[in-house]
């Protein structure tokens, strides 16, 4: 996956992500696609979450999946979750939960949903996502409505391993997160940070918006055979667009 929070020269934020899933889960030799990615593209939906008769937040989901990977609470915050691989990963958390050792630990996508249901500001959401015990590691990419409200929360099971703020971003005006810690190098065979950074540098801050960021996320290898969709979000305007993605032809498998 690739998540991006980009800030234009006036401080307007665009939050976007590619959802990549299905690695090694069956290859379709006719369509030249991963089988699971193919099936997932057919069950993508957008959801308006309603509470007390009013819109509370928006998300996109795979049908039948009740948790949240991406969402937007108008005027408050936006969130995407990227997978973080660790030896002490989801299995470990699940086993601890099953044996009652981590009874209060939250399942990742349900913690994300709970944050949308309960929290009403960027700062409240950030605090909740940073400090709530959970059952698996993850990268939470959180955006807000005001200038410089953006961060990457690198989560371990019992706390935040690293917090990267948009205001301190090495690139100055955007954060780009794939599936590696910000203070470590990507695995060389799976480096989507370098091409993503190069493409964002070509985009330049003055073009940071839905069109520009979508084009970056439609570039190889941030776009690859695993990519199922791109979601584009603006907390300020409440725009939420999910666009199906695929990478037919000569495209890297991940």
């Amino acid at each position, binding site marked *: 996956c690739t998540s991006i929070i980009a800030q234009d020269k006036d401080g307007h934020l665009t939050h976007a992500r590619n959802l990549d899933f299905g690695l090694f889960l069956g290859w379709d030799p006719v369509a030249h696609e991963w089988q699971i990615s193919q099936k997932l593209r057919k069950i993508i939906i957008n959801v308006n979450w309603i509470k*007390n008769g009013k819109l509370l937040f928006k998300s996109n989901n795979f049908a039948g999946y009740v948790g949240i990977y991406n969402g937007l609470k108008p005027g408050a915050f936006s969130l995407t979750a990227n997978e973080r691989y660790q030896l002490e990963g989801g299995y470990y958390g699940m086993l601890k939960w099953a044996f009652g050792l981590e009874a209060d630990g939250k399942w990742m996508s349900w913690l994300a949903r709970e944050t949308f249901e309960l929290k009403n500001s960027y700062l409240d959401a950030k605090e909740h996502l940073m400090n709530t015990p959970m059952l698996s590691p993850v990268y939470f990419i959180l955006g807000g409505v005001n200038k410089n409200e953006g961060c990457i929360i690198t989560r371990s099971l019992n706390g935040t391993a690293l917090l990267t703020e948009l205001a301190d971003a090495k690139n100055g005006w955007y954060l780009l997160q794939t599936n590696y810690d910000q203070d470590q190098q990507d695995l060389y065979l799976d480096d989507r940070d370098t091409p993503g950074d190069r*493409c964002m540098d070509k985009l330049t801050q003055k073009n940071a918006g839905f*069109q520009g960021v979508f084009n970056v996320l439609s570039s190889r290898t941030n776009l690859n055979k695993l990519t199922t969709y791109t979601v584009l979000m603006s907390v300020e305007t409440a725009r939420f667009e999910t666009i199906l993605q695929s990478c037919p032809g000569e495209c890297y498998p991940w």
Partner: protein
Amino acid sequence: HVELPAPYTDHCILDDKTNLYDPSKQFDIQWFDINLDLPPSERWKQVAGAYKVQIKELIGVLIELISPIFPNAVDWADDVFGEMALKLPQPYRDEIMSISQVTGIPLGQITMYNIFYEIFTV
């Protein structure tokens, strides 16, 4: 960073001066309302009903992939995750159970699908 070999080399489409963003494509994805004022067992009925065939196909592919390696994977998933479902926190437990009922997919398999993230972070 190691450059991928051609034709898989990284390529930023901004170099081509092209624009792939077409906002009208967002309407290919259907919108649904999930009403949190309803009981959890009622919330996902419309979505589950509309997509039951596609969800079954997805889980079917997973089972096909896993079965040659773990021949009893389906029974195992039905048992282990079916039992786990009963201990999941609310409102997710009731939501997942109702999706299982509407789609006709065994509870263990729908539960496994819903905790896929935790399973795959290894």
